[in-house]
């Protein structure tokens, strides 16, 4: 840390100041009452590619269990979760069910949602336990089974030691008690959502969760349902109990019918949407048990910049126009409902304009007056989302069923220049990247073949790799884990890592059903420890901070997941064992039978018998032949002398045999050359 350049240091100063500020803000937050609390929030954000992001955030808090007879009695907090935490001594846990892939290019990569709610497809589970080291694996196994029962998913497949790993520093700081596992092929559907909703006090009967109309949310482009648990009490911090954060992030495509056709310009108008059009439902009431239930509409920094540009042209300042109508209408869009308040991001680190948050409180609305927020676009607007410093993608190289290579490519998004633009002059600016990669054992990665390319030029590994931890896979026991810290120069345009591997062979009963589909390599996690995704909105200090906004404020490193790779392995014909058994047995049986026959053969007797028979047969055949020739010649047939005929036939047979043997010998000679 000592060799950090000065500008980064100043950046850190800003960050640490912010930490102090937020710590003060949190100070009031953590004066918890002994009550269990619940709050519900929904964040809506129009995305640049004509889609809408909806992010539900439900948070339940339980008071420290020590004051409540070891947490046996619950009022709002789900009993199942509290018991789970108590039984397995879970310090922290995150479980996510995801369908689809987060599009980092278009939906952003540098905001709290994309770095903590963009998850790899399938199931991802990690948990840290407060148990001695030797018990961690046992706790993990029990936990996977319990969760699998709780969420109707095959999480129990994470029990096997070949599926989970223990990252040490690149994923999440923990002292060896963390386990991480993914199931990339787990299908996510309503049967996983229902038990997740069961943990909410109002389930989907009232409140914001009413919006979760199953067909609409599963129709989306991206669907990630997440459950995050923190129980700091095991760490000796008794001031707060278990915190359960349940989030559901969906990216939906509003129907664009009858909206955009009026504009003929090449930039099409964004489709207008409302809650009822994207979810098919309206918010009728809040969950009465929730301490707060709010809906936020977020306008990203890029969009706000565009807005401000227009305003400048119209010589009306954004800030000046604080009239109640001013928020609702602007040159770009109209909102159907007036926001209760508008929050601005305090300081954006991305250089561009800070984002704006419209806040709506659901408490005012009822069955007779349902809340249906609508956004109507009036003119086309193009903006871009904040991006992570490097855009990561991963792909396979090579062909065939024998070997291949994994490549991780990192392409600069231009942010780092922008962000650390001033540093390039000094030349010592470094961009730090952490990579965490788990590879199943049957993909045998040769870690010594790690090669690094920066801007297309091969580089010595030691120049780029700052720190490295590799635990090679062990057949049928553990997966291969690679943790890397890379340092690139700030002006890096592109970088790539390649690793070669051999495809292993599995035992016949280790193949999953439908093995010909291929095998998944879980997503790699690429994180940027020096970049923190946090948005801090300015709020009245009198108001109690909303749990979702304080979550956004938490310092979390920018993180992105790479694609899941599909590796085709050689799959055997699964009836092979029986074929092998049958053919071997047949060969053995043939061998045995002939051996036995040879042993009990009487050569002399057979020869005599054969001669006898041959004589008979030959006589008849010769008779027939002579009869035929006689007929052809038209002469009277006469009985020939049998001995002479037979002897001549034998000699003929002998000649045929000799010819056959020589033929075979010639063929053999010919083909063997």
């Amino acid at each position, binding site marked *: 840390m000592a060799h950090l350049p000065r500008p980064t240091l100043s950046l850190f100063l800003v960050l640490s100041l912010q930490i102090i500020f937020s710590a003060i803000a949190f100070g009031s937050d953590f004066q918890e009452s002994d009550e269990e609390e619940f709050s519900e929030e929904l964040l809506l954000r129009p995305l640049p590619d004509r889609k809408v992001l909806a992010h539900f955030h439900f948070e339940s808090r339980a008071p420290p269990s020590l004051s409540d007879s070891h947490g046996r*009695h*619950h009022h709002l907090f789900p009993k199942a979760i509290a*018991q789970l935490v108590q039984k397995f001594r879970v310090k922290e846990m995150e479980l996510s069910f995801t369908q689809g892939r987060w599009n980092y290019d278009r939906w952003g990569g540098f905001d709290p949602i994309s770095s903590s709610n963009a998850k790899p497809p399938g199931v991802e589970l990690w948990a840290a336990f407060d148990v001695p080291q030797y018990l961690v694996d046992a706790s993990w196994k029990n936990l996977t089974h319990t969760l699998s029962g709780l969420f109707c998913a095959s999480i129990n497949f994470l029990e096997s030691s070949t599926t989970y790993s223990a990252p040490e520093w690149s994923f999440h700081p923990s002292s060896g008690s963390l386990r991480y596992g993914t199931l990339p092929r787990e299908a996510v559907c309503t049967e996983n959502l229902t038990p997740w909703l069961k943990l909410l006090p109002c389930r989907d009967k009232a409140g914001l969760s009413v919006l979760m109309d199953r067909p609409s949310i599963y129709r989306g482009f991206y669907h990630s349902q997440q459950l995050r648990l923190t129980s700091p009490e095991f760490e000796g911090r008794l001031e707060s109990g278990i915190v359960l954060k349940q989030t559901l992030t969906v990216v939906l495509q509003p129907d664009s019918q009858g909206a955009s056709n009026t504009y003929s310009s090449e930039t099409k108008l964004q489709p207008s949407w409302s809650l009822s059009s994207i979810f098919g439902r309206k918010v009728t009431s809040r969950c009465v048990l929730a301490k707060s239930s709010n809906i936020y509409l977020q306008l990203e920094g890029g969009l706000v910049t565009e807005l401000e540009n227009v305003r400048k042209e119209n010589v009306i300042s954004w800030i000046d126009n604080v009239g109640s109508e001013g928020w609702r209408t602007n040159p770009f869009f109209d909102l159907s409902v007036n926001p209760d308040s508008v929050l601005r991001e305090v300081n954006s680190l991305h250089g561009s304009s800070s984002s704006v948050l419209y806040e709506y409180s659901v408490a005012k609305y009822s069955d007779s007056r349902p809340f249906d927020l609508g956004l109507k676009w009036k003119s086309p607007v193009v903006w871009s989302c904040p991006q992570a410093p490097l855009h990561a993608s991963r792909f396979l190289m090579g062909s065939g069923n024998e070997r291949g290579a994994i490549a991780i490519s990192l392409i600069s998004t231009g942010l780092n220049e922008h962000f650390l633009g001033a540093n390039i002059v000094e030349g010592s600016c470094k961009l730090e990247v952490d990579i965490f990669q788990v590879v199943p054992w049957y993909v045998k990665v040769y870690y010594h073949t790690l090669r690094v390319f920066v801007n297309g030029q091969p580089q010595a590994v030691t120049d780029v790799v700052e720190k490295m931890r590799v635990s090679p896979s062990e057949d049928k026991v553990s997966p291969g884990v690679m943790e890397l810290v890379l340092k690139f120069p700030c002006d890096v345009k592109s970088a790539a890592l390649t690793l070669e591997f051999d495809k292993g062979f599995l035992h016949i009963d280790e193949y999953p059903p439908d093995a010909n589909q291929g095998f998944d390599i879980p997503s790699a996690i690429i994180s940027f420890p020096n970049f923190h995704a946090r948005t801090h909105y300015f709020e009245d200090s009198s108001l109690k901070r909303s749990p979702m906004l304080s979550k956004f404020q938490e310092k979390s490193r920018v993180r992105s997941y790479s694609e899941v790779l599909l590796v085709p392995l050689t799959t055997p014909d699964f009836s092979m064992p029986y074929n092998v058994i049958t053919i071997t047995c047949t060969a053995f049986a043939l061998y*045995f039978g002939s051996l036995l026959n040879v042993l009990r053969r009487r050569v002399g007797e057979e020869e005599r018998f054969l001669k006898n028979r041959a004589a008979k047969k030959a006589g008849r055949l010769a008779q027939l032949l002579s009869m035929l020739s006689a007929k052809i010649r038209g002469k009277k047939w006469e009985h020939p002398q049998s001995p002479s005929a037979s002897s001549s036939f034998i000699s003929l047979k002998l000649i045929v045999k000799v010819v056959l043997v020589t033929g075979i010998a010639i063929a053999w000679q010919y083909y063997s050359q």
Partner: protein
Amino acid sequence: MADISEAPGETHQISETTHKAEEPESDFDPKTMRNSKPGIKRLILTLSVLFSFLLGFPFLWKSVEIYRAPLPFREIDMLSAQIESNPLLFPCHFQAIFVGFDSKPSMTPDALGSSILSQMTKLTAKPPQCGTCSTNFSIAVTVDSSSGCIQTRNLEYTSSWRCGSMGTIDFSDDEGVDKALADSLGGKVYSVVVVNGDREEVSAVVGKYRHAWVVGRVSEAEAVARAAEIFVKVFMNGGKEEGLIHGEFMPVGADGKIVLSFNLLNSDPQDWVYDWDFQSIDETLLAPVIEALESVANISVESQVLYHTPKSSFSHWDDEQESYIFSTKDLPFFVNSNEWHLDTSIAAGGRSKILQFVVYIPSARECPLLLQLPNGEISKTNGFISPMWGGVLVWNPKDCLKDSESQHPLRRTISQQDLQEVFEVVMGQFRQLFGLKSNNVYVGASGTSSLLASERGFTEWELDVLSRQHTCFNLHSCATTLGSLSRLVQSLPRMIIMDEIGKQVMYSLEAANLARSNASLGLYDASAVSSRQARSLAEDAFFHPSIMSVSYYSFEHCFAVYSPFFLPVSMHVLLAALREWRRYKQENKKYVAWKTKVKKDS
């Protein structure tokens, strides 16, 4: 090759040429005789191959055999037969104390004892039920009259009763009498004290410990009848009425644990939200009960509050009652398993029994909600139980008025007093789930006795009954579990059985036998412990993961793997041996024929 091997069987067999050439005799027919002994080289060879195959078979059989730990099938059958034929009975000791009766010739202790005994035998159920007292009762009678104090003799125990100590007791205060009698009687003996007094009305009270007393002007015969009835119906059978839950349904998990899960259901939180201070109830009301039941089960308590949980049956408005009514025939549909996420507890490990107690708060649309009994009356408790599942109680808020104007629902906590009432009902339900009476009056043939309720929920004699029944239930279920395990194992001859299962079965049988022997000695606690152990071991064996898994290597599979080899090979070996044997016999016959001919000739 085949037709060559056929050759020996055919009749036109030709003997060796050497003999043919050398044979000068004209009557030597090579087709029917030979002059040399047939060789046995090939016969020995084929037979040795065949025998080595046959010898190899046991080894092969051994190698493909799956491991099955030997299970004591006979002992298991014996245990179930024993439990079926002679139910588990405990020896019980009774004593009757008659105070203030005139000394008449019929008032001798022995005579009274025998008359009580005959009454009791009449009252006991003919086929003795499991978990009751054995029929050879031992009764001690003490007659404490002004003239003296006489006791029955020839008994292994002597009463601790001090004669004349009755005078100091005031019978108007039941609690006081109970305490005093507990001090003077004590012990494990069930006793009835009959005090012949001046009071007209006869009152019978069963105390919290192991004694009862009858006070009033009673005749001798009446006193005997009452004493016998209290002994049999109350102390032996727990005052149960017919038709209540049978003792075999004991809501105790196989590991001897019960989880009491209390749920407060707010059917519609838009109307009102009620909360409770369960913590205090747990500490004040439930803790003593849990402590009292320690001998029967290990109990833990948890609670939760659920919302948006409407009931799934209908109720109708009744003008007369001014309330909504649901009747007993709606009860099967009352519990709404779709919306009531009562949850099985994660904290409860393995095979604990979870009893759900539900306090249902109706919404404003159906408040107050009352339960109508089949006879048209309104239920006093407003609740019902479902055996082995738990109980439901409908609790109506005091005023069913909802402030319709307010957006915010009423948030209230059920008052401590209301909660106390609720838990009295819940406690009654809990007792009913155990098969005990929920009210404190016993109506017998010879009069009504009031039962003193213990603040611990269960009196000592009730706990005795429960622990007897528990032991019986455990042994029963142990026997049935082991029985089904043995049937299962016998029906699947190629199922792998681990050593561990064999061990568990053996220990379970041992524990069951120990429980039986302890029960016959009258050691309640020891037999309860070992019976619980027997049951849990039996269940462990039955639910052993290796049995649950589908690691069943079937015979068909085995056959499919080995038949491609053994079928053709065995055909070869058998046929070769058979042919050689046949040929040898034929040739030998020829030789013998030649021999006899030679002999005849010479």
